[in-house]
């Protein structure tokens, strides 16, 4: 198999097979919290996509060329979270300068991304070596494929969920299930559907 096919398969597997929200459980907080409206869900998804790809792009060289030679790999969590926090700031500034309308649309979701575990989770997976991680990326290509697939997976799932939830509001749900419980049950059904992708690209 040539390199390009491996790259594509890695994207598909982190997008569909091990979906970031429904099977790896990253970013549930924002998934549940921001999926009330389609528009805000899409804004959040786009912002997260930005930050995940950038963070993966920056953190891989930091790990390989700075932390490993300096034998400071145990510091990875602290370094990554600082990288992510400053990246979010930079992205905020850049977006504000070049596209004020997008900045307005992203609004408060931009700073919230720092604490979205999808970002830190992907970065950790990309550099981790060990069986306990779903993805232990072997090289830069796989790391980037994981970042791309994960972030697109997050975007798609949060928008789908927002669409379903706007329909659910009109539905006649039992009183106790109103709001969050029924949203979680919906997520469970989505997770069941995504289990159908298991085996692709294996």
């Amino acid at each position, binding site marked *: 198999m040539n390199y390009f096919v491996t790259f594509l398969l890695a994207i598909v597997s982190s997008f569909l097979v091990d979906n970031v929200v429904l099977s790896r459980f990253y970013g549930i907080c924002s998934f549940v919290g921001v999926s009330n409206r389609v528009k805000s869900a899409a804004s959040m998804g786009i912002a997260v996509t930005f930050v995940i790809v950038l963070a993966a792009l920056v953190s891989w060289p930091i790990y390989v060329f700075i932390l490993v030679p300096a034998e400071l790999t145990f510091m990875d969590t602290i370094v990554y979270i600082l990288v992510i*926090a400053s990246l979010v700031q930079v992205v905020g500034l850049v977006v504000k300068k070049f596209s004020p309308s997008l900045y307005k649309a992203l609004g408060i979701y931009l700073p919230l991304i720092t604490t979205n575990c999808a970002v830190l989770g992907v970065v950790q997976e990309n550099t981790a070596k060990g069986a*306990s991680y779903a993805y232990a990326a072997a090289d830069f290509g796989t790391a980037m494929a994981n970042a791309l697939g994960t972030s697109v997976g997050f975007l798609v799932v949060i928008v789908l969920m927002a669409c379903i939830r706007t329909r659910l509001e009109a539905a006649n749900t039992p009183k106790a299930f109103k709001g969050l419980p029924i*949203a979680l049950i919906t997520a*469970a059904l989505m*997770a*069941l559907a995504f*289990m159908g992708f298991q085996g692709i690209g294996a």
Partner: protein
Amino acid sequence: MEEKKRYFHKESFLKPIWQENPLFVLVLGTCPALAVTKTFEASLGMGILFTFVLVFSNVIISALRKIIPDEVHIPCYIVVIATFVTITKMMTEAFLPELYSSLGVFLALLVVNCIVLGRAEAFANKNTVGDSLLDGLGNGVGFTLALCIIGLVREILGTGMLTLGNIFTFIQVNGEAIHLPILKAVDGSYDFSISLFSNPAGGFITLGVIMAIIAAVNNHKAAIAKAKALEEKKRQAALKAQQAQAAVGGDK
């Protein structure tokens, strides 16, 4: 005024355990609550490590609350939290390697846990060290309790038995984990387990149903309170009318 001078407040420990439970009531920290609750032991381990991180980060942030400048407080909190998460990670890897490998990346993800950052932001930076310690303990115990409930339900329904000793290896008997057959016999003579609950979908269902049960109980309580208040009002009105009647009768 006396209340304010006290160094420890019992409420800051007791409230978060059930009344303001971080997971079931405030719906924070859902990522670990779904990801590591496949088994009871992993849930318990996660809860204990979480409590450790939360207590220490709360204490340090509360002690530094007058030094940390307001403009950069979030990065400061994150560095404090990340330090304790790194310590926890290294200790767990050294002393409980089974727990370390079963928690995986979610141990590192404690850095961005909404509860830890939320308690720092909402409580530790305004209150005394002693109170923050109690608040951290209370939230930790509450979260551990919530994780253990989900873990118990998922493990028993998903695998049919409760396994002890896979992760906390010191409770093994004769070098083997203890299996408590509940829905599934050890020899396989009966098996009522639902493997869906071991899957990701089962986590969502369990959390959703538990939250619905809590909402139902609260709705029921509210309805009873409302009915009682209504009855009390009626009784008062009747009493007043009686008194008025008596007063009128006395006048005659």
